[in-house]
């Protein structure tokens, strides 16, 4: 027994982006423990922006590498580089929104102490002393780390760990809003209970798949599928349970019930981050699981995914019509958008992969922008989220209302916006896979969705502002920059999508 265990060879350079973010998150925790209160916010800002930009630079520097790392546990291939790049860019925009502290007279969007009872004397004191909850930053960075690892995971264990690293900080962040704290805490509880429930499904599905294939490596599962043709209960059960876990994170029907509650209750910068980046990471991971590990039984899951995509598009679009709260409406809209992305995923082809990636970029930045606008329309109690309160916004603040109108048109898929190109690509991929019915449902859902998107524009521009309506806060440079980036990406991807499409096409295929 004196033989030495062979040490695994690890090439750290391709993993550098993830290592930078992980290191910054850990240093952030140490800063929270030891730095004086005044110094924490500047330090955390430097760490967060420095690490995100540094990680993106490292990603670009190493973007030519295609390899599997850490004994095959993590894979760096074209799609994972693209997905990590999207996550990092979205995280930078989200960090701009999180760093904003001029909107609320009392400070940033987060409770001064999440532990203080809502409405208590403690809370008033913390607020009047101007305390800030800077723990938000390390939590945010850990979540970004999870999102980067999630689509790059090459076995079920790493995927599960990444799923949890991504989700656990988000459960906490969801409960930290400064205003309407009971709503926020309720959102955190619902998100946590249902999120943990769904990860248990994912884990048990992984166990069944391991029982079937004898390995948790995606390539090993794919080999087992060709070696043992025929369906076993372990395989089908494993795939179904893994699918439940991932579709929950994506917010697909019938696993969507948490989305409106959590999106409405969470602080708006966190909602923006959740709505945009979680979806990117989870769709990326779903693509890898389905295409790499379970590509051999595509005929079994493709039909199921078509049904789910169709249902998700229809339910999201139809229920969104009846919403009176703008954040809830955007939540249902994001459910519908998830359905459109799933149409691309279920095409099970290279075109489907490319279309899904493009749609994720378009959707991510547009969504980020919509919630940035929501955080700016405020009255004395915080954000004014009733759609009726938004009446006449176009007269009070034409620039902001125009930005929001552009986002709404993009989500509706009107030409010359990024949303149109995204929808066109996913429908094209689905048609190539002979899914005519799904495409028809998608077109129908787009028409239904256009109704409530355009309704907001009509309310903003063609109705009189109420007497005691909300005011539009003039944001600081951070939110302005975030909004400008979102508008720019939305318009440029609509007018000139080709460079990004070329980039995605060059990225190529999943490594087995």
């Amino acid at each position, binding site marked *: 027994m004196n033989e030495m265990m062979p040490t695994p060879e690890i090439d750290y350079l391709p993993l550098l982006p993830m290592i930078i973010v992980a290191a910054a998150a850990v240093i952030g925790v140490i800063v929270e423990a030891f730095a004086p209160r005044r110094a924490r916010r500047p330090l955390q800002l430097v760490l967060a922006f420095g690490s995100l930009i540094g990680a993106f630079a490292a990603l670009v520097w190493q973007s030519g590498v295609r390899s599997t790392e850490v004994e095959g546990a993590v894979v760096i291939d074209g799609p994972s580089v693209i997905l990590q790049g999207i996550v990092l860019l979205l995280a930078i925009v989200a960090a701009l929104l999180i760093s904003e502290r001029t909107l609320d007279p009392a400070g940033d969007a987060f409770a001064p102490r999440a532990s203080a009872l*809502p409405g208590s004397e403690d809370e008033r004191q913390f607020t009047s002393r101007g305390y800030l909850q800077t723990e938000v930053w390390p939590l945010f960075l850990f979540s970004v780390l999870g999102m980067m690892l999630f689509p790059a995971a090459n076995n079920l264990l790493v995927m599960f760990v990444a799923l949890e690293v991504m989700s656990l900080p988000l459960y906490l962040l969801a409960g930290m809003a400064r205003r309407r704290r009971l709503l926020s805490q309720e959102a955190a509880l619902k998100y946590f209970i249902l999120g943990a429930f769904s990860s248990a499904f994912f884990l048990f599905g992984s166990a069944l798949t391991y029982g079937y294939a004898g390995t948790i490596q995606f390539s090993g599962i794919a080999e087992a599928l060709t070696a043992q043709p025929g369906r076993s209960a372990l395989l089908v059960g494993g795939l179904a349970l893994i699918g439940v876990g991932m579709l929950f994170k994506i917010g697909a029907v019938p696993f969507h019930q948490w989305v409106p509650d959590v999106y409405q209750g969470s602080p708006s910068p966190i909602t923006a981050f959740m709505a945009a980046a979680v979806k990117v990471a989870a769709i990326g991971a779903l693509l890898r699981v389905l295409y790499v590990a379970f590509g051999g039984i595509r005929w079994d899951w493709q039909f199921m995914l078509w049904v789910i995509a169709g249902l998700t598009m229809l339910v999201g679009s139809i229920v969104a019509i009846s919403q009176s709260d703008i954040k809830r409406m955007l939540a249902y809209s994001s459910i519908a958008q998830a359905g459109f992305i799933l149409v691309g995923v279920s095409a099970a082809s290279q075109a489907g992969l490319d279309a899904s990636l493009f749609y994720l970029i378009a959707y991510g930045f547009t969504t980020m922008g919509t919630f940035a606008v929501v955080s700016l329309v405020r009255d004395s109690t915080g954000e004014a989220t009733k759609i009726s309160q938004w009446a006449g916004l176009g007269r009070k603040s034409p620039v902001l209302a125009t930005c929001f109108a552009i986002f709404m048109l993009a989500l509706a898929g009107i030409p010359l916006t990024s949303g149109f190109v995204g929808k066109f690509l996913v429908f094209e991929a689905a048609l190539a896979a002979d899914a005519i019915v799904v495409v028809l449902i998608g077109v129908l859902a787009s028409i239904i969705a256009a109704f409530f998107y355009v309704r907001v524009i009509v309310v903003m521009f063609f109705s009189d502002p109420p007497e005691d309506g909300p005011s539009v806060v003039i944001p600081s440079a951070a939110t302005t920059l975030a909004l400008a980036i979102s508008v720019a990406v939305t318009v440029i991807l609509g007018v000139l999508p080709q460079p990004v499409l070329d980039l995605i096409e060059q990225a190529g295929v999943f490594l087995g």
Partner: protein
Amino acid sequence: MNPESYVVLACVLFTLGAIGVLVRRNAIVVFMSIELMLNAANLAFVAFARMNGNLEGQVIAFFVMVVAAAEVVVGLAIIVTIYRSRRSASIDEPNLLKY
């Protein structure tokens, strides 16, 4: 002992946990049911490791324990916060977010 019985036991435990999440009303009990589901998955991993004749499943069990511990930290923090502001750990009572 036939390892297949352990797989059956794991499935039973997982189902019990899932039913517990759906029917129990106390957040702590719901949370314990989720932990039961995770541990059922662990048992399945270990049993399959024995059947497959490799160690991967046992290694996974250790990782899952660590993740479950992290989940306890986050979950209890959220449940305790809710309990302090509402004086109740029922998951039916927080019902401000709807429609």
